[in-house]
Structures are given as C-alpha cells and as structure tokens.
C-alpha cells in the first residue's frame, strides 16, 4: 500500500482520499478511526467544559441517571446517555461491558477471571471495571475471537 502526502493549495481544505479495489473491514476500521479522531465529546467538571477525544476516555459509567467519562486522571460528566455513546461510536474501540459501563478496549491492560462467570478488566491507569458475563460474547466478537 502506498501512502502519499501532498500539500493542498491555500484555498482548499485538508482531505483524505482512499483509493481501494475493495473496502474491507481493516479499511473501514481505519476510516472510522480517522473520523472518530475529529468527534469529540463535551465533558463537564467543576463548572468547566472540556472537549474529550474518545481515544483518551478509559470508560464511561452510568450512575444515578448520570453518565461519567473516566480519563486517565480526571472524571467528567457527559450529557450523552450510554446507549447514545454506544450507537454513535459503534465502530470504535468503545464497547459495552455491562448495563452501566462502556469501556475503551484499546486502554485495557489485562483481563482477569472472577467468580460468578464475570471478568475484571484492569485499565492502563490501574483502574478496574467488571465485565458482565452477558457481554463477554460481544466483547470477544469485537476482538475477532471465534466462538467455541
């Protein structure tokens, strides 16, 4: 695959053109990542607002009808509901792992087994979240693990 970078003229905007014989899953994921990089989520914390990139959010959690985005060291409240985040970022690394949590799978350090058919995900910042057994098949499908 050749990658060509050109400087556009001053009056034209940045654009990315993909030439391909077939639009496969890998290319689709790449396109989605490119688009996602520009889609920010507004986070609110202590009367301040911040534009959060989904790639920097470790996980979302719904608590008392509010949704919080957990970044490496900060927590922000977001206005979107979990199902909206799930729908808007369905092709991204954000994956629902329980009724109240959506996790960024690219920021998972490791998975450990727990009692009750549950799994525990340790994030790269040391935080731990529980993966409900009902959502394990979907997580495996997202990671391309074939069913037994």
């Amino acid at each position: 695959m050749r990658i060509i970078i050109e400087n556009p003229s001053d009056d034209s905007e940045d654009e990315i053109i993909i030439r391909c014989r077939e639009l496969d899953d890998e290319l689709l994921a790449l396109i989605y990542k490119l688009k996602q990089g520009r889609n920010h989520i507004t986070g609110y914390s202590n009367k301040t607002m911040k534009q959060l990139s989904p790639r920097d959010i470790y996980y979302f959690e719904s608590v008392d009808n509010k949704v919080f985005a957990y970044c490496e060291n900060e927590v922000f409240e977001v206005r979107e509901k979990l199902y909206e985040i799930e729908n808007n970022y369905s092709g991204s690394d954000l994956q629902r792992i329980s009724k109240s949590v959506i996790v960024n799978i690219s920021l998972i350090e490791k998975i450990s087994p727990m009692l009750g058919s549950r799994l525990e995900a340790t994030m790269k910042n040391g935080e731990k979240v529980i993966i409900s057994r009902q959502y394990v098949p979907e997580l495996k499908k997202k990671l391309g693990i074939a069913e037994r």
Partner: protein
Amino acid sequence: MKKFTEIIKYFTSITTGIVLVFIVIILIQGDKSFPTKFLFEIPCASLATSLLTILLAPDETSQPKPFFLRVTLHYIALCVLMTVLGVSFGWVKLDASGILTMILSTAGVYVFTYAVSYFSSMRDAEEINSALNRKNKK
C-alpha cells in the same frame, strides 16, 4: 435466546454436580445401586435450580459486599428448594440429618458449578488477553 443459553449452561453443570454428589453419597453409604427414578428426578432438580439461579445469581453488582450478600441469599434459596425437592423425591427425610444432608449436598454442587464457571472465565480471559496483545501490536 441468551437467557435460554444461560439456563442450558447452568442446567448442564448443575446436573453434573448433582450426579457427582449422589455418587459420593452412594459410595459413603456403601449402596451400589443407582435407582432409575434418579434419571428423571435429577434433571428436574437441575432445571428448578437453574431457573432459580437465573433469577437470583449476582452478576451486575461490582461491589464485594452486595455481591456476597446475593451469593448468600442465592445459596439459602437453593438449600430450601433442594430440601423441598429432596423430601418430595424421597431422597431424604424431613429431619435434622436429612436437612443437613441437603445443605451439604447443595454446598457441594454450588462449589462445583462455581469452579466450572471460574475455569471457563479463565479460558475467556486468556483468549481476550491474547486478542488484546495482537491488537496492541498492530
């Protein structure tokens, strides 16, 4: 469909657990016979306990205290159900030793099914960790 698959999973491991407990009890009692009526009664007990497990087994709770509270409640409910079924099927008598037998048998099956699900979770964790390593290398 998801619930049905879960019920089948529980049914399979609970049936295996009950059969193993029965084998242990039969060996302890020195009786080498395995009544054919067990072939109907054991699956009935497995199905009833599987349905109870779907209703009561803790899953979503992440905090340790509520989780162990639900495990305790689940176990007590199972003991009551198994004692009722055990007396109905004639496995035990409704006396102190019969109830104790059912409590211990239920504990045995409980530990077995938890062990089975834990080992299954271990396998899932290994698969997912391998996939995450492959993904991070890309």
